[in-house]
């Protein structure tokens, strides 16, 4: 296991790659080399361009300029099938499975073993799947449909898929985010075995200790630019964070001290069968409460049920002491709740509509008279908020779709803040936006709290949780397993609770 910079030809490489989506430059002049038998880490914050880089290697995106090199020779992947045929296996952060098809079919789709006349050998497909599950040490039935599998099990299916063809390059985008400690250990031993057989591995994880445990070299990206490629030996976690962030953390998390007032939002024993169970918490005025946990722990679902988008099976939500009618977002809005959803493109904005129209949507009754929308009021409301949030835009009548991710997020915030809420629920407020805007969003949330707003913030970004929250609630597999005051919340304590390593968490599972 040599730790030095390997020599020889990289099996897969990027050279000077640029990629833009509309006005957003996702990758600028990025290079990367993957060598056989080496595990390479890709580090960078959310929105640094890691996912775009992976999708370029996987043949999903084609670079605007620059080259993809396979065994030193330039190649063009016309689609994911080309990359797969070149021996590149990708495990995406969010499993993409066919819910209606069996696990075996999910793994072997398009590559099923065949008998004479091109007929699928169903028995061989099932046997091969069972063998893969054996190799991964899990007991999933090959015939079970993928619908309803837990995130961890879906991840296992994705991993089995990657193993099922002898990949020369294995790319893993946060494969451990939803796994428990023992599942992670098992995954790592499989990866080690593949690496020993000469496969190249590209590994992404927000858990720095995993990077140091598994990988030999690391490439860091920041805001779509290449920062460094270097051996991990001799680096410390702090070195790596400094390369990723490129500035002091204090500046990114401008937390103001606030006076905590009376309870604004109170959730009692909220339950949605099979999703989350018995969730109770309070959020008081002037307080930022973070809801942390792994992907799939049920945080977004709790927010949706609180706001009434999804109906809870049991439990009660009170806003300002008054019980909220369940299953009614309009009642929630009237009571002073606002929800900034996780997926701003799908749920937060109408992409084809203008900035002013989007901001106006939440207050149509306030900007209209006699049943007609008054354009001047609509424009005034939008202009007011655009200034307050330092929105960067051409004209207010421009489509929201042309704005950058960070500015789109500001429009969603403006849309909800314009309703003058008492409680703001934000779901992943800074996912996929650049560091500069991220700091602005943080400053905004902090000053809003100082003005007496109650903020419930769902975030998978641990530094954000630790930097912004007065209190941290941690969910694990649909249950609230820990409540940590700011002073006690550390990366270790939150992760321990989120992965169910605390005694309480184990019992709950």
């Amino acid at each position: 296991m040599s730790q030095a910079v390997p020599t020889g030809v990289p099996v897969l490489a990027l050279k000077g790659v640029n990629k833009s989506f509309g006005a957003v430059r996702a990758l600028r002049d990025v290079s990367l080399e993957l060598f056989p038998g080496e595990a390479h880490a890709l580090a960078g914050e959310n929105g640094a361009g890691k996912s775009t880089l992976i999708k370029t290697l996987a043949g999903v995106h084609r670079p605007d300029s620059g080259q993809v090199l396979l065994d030193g020779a330039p190649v063009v992947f016309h689609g994911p099938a080309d990359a797969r045929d070149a021996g590149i296996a990708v495990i995406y952060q969010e499993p993409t499975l066919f819910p209606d098809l069996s696990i075996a079919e999910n793994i072997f789709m398009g590559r099923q073993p065949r008998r004479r006349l091109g007929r699928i050998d169903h028995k061989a497909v099932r046997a091969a799947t069972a063998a893969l599950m054996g190799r991964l040490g899990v007991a999933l039935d090959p015939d079970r449909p993928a619908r309803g599998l837990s995130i961890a099990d879906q991840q296992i299916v994705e991993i089995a898929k990657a193993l099922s063809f002898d990949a020369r390059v294995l790319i893993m985008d946060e494969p451990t985010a939803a796994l428990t400690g023992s599942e992670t250990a098992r995954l790592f031993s499989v990866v080690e075995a593949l690496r020993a057989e000469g496969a190249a591995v590209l590994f992404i994880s927000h858990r720095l200790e995993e990077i140091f445990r598994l990988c030999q070299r690391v490439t860091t990206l920041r805001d779509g630019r290449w920062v460094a490629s270097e051996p991990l030996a001799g680096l410390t976690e702090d070195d790596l964070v400094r390369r990723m962030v490129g500035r002091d953390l204090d500046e990114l998390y401008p937390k103001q001290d606030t006076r905590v007032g009376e309870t604004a939002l109170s959730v009692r024993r909220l339950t949605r069968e099979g999703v989350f169970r018995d969730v109770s918490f309070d959020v008081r005025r002037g307080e930022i409460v973070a809801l942390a946990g792994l992907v799939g722990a049920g945080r977004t679902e709790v927010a949706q049920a609180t706001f009434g988008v999804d109906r809870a099976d049991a439990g009660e939500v009170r806003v300002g002491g008054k019980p909220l009618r369940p299953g009614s977002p309009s009642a929630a809005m009237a009571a002073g709740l606002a929800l900034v959803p996780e997926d701003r493109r799908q749920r937060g904005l109408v992409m084809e509509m203008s900035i002013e129209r989007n901001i106006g949507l939440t207050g149509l009754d306030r900007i209209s008279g006699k049943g007609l929308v008054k354009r001047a009021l609509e424009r005034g409301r939008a202009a007011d908020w655009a200034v307050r949030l330092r929105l960067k835009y051409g004209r207010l009548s421009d489509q929201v779709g042309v704005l950058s991710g960070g500015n789109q997020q500001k429009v969603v915030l403006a849309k909800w803040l314009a309703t003058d809420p008492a409680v703001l629920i934000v779901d992943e407020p800074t996912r996929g936006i650049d560091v500069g805007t991220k700091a602005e969003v943080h400053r905004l949330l902090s000053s809003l709290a100082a003005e007496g707003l109650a903020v419930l913030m769902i975030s998978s970004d641990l530094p954000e949780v630790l930097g912004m929250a007065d209190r941290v609630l941690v969910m694990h597999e649909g249950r609230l397993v820990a409540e940590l005051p700011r002073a006690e919340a550390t990366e270790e304590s939150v992760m321990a609770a989120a992965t169910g390593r605390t005694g309480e968490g184990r019992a709950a599972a």
Partner: protein
Amino acid sequence: MTATIDKPTAPAEAGRSARSLVDTVFRAREISIAGALVLLVLFTWIAEPRFLGGQGVKDLLLNAAILVLLAVGQSVVVVTRNIDLSVGSVVGLSAFACGKFVSGTDHGPLLVALLGIAVGAACGLVSGSLVSFGKVPALVVTLGMLYIIQGVDYWWAEGEQINAADVPQSVLDLGSGSVLGIPYLPLISFAVLAATAYFLRTYRSGRELYAIGSSPEAARLAGVPIRRRVLGAYVFSGAVAGFAGSLWLARFGTVVADNAHGWELTVVSAVVVGGVAIVGGTGTVWGAALGALLLTTIGSALSVLKVDSFWEDAIAGALLLAAISVDRIVNVRMTRALRKRSAR
């Protein structure tokens, strides 16, 4: 610690019972349609014994044959999360084209069938190209194609009608002849049905159709050639509809421009009643064929029982709504059940 030790065995049991649950649900769908069919036939037979006389059964099968064929073609499209509303007018155009082709000649049935298939496949190619390469929503494309094909048919026919007297006897024999007492038409439909079912189950391209309907995004990442497969599904559906058109000519002999007018909706109902989810990814052509058989049998039963024919449409509509509601409920329940099993 014990929790981690017995964990591996738990999913295995959950998986096994989950599989039998899913199997039961899906089999239940086809069995319940078959059951409804049997009850309907029994009930009608008791009320009117001639319903199951030799000619009665023959008529039942003949009536169902063309709808079953169309339902098979439609299922292949619906499974990919698309729809083909143009099948009714394709049948009309193909029947008229075949009629024009044979009238006053002695062309054999094989040639007629090939012509019908070619006409239908050409229509399917146009719809399929627009849907798969043009990325226009299938509903709009095939609705447009429905009117265009109908227009072409009217313009070409100019009120003309093809009469059985002009059609060669060999072609008419295909429509009226039988082997061992079973008419040719249902036999042909059954052969197409069985072949399609086998294809969908045992060929990679067949499974990929389900994959596309189940999750287009996952299909793309798995390297499934989505556009080619969707195009293929439309060409198949068109070809089957065209073939059905030539069988229409053989069965009725008399052909006018608006044959099979409005059939597209009956076909879609049959497919959905038969358990092929309109959102794609699930269902079998066997179910769709049973759905088609059920709908035509309801029609025949009502006319035998001398019930007003408008009830036929009302009942078909009610069945359709019931089928979709059942799909939705089953889907929600099953997801919840599977989730609970894997959570345990």
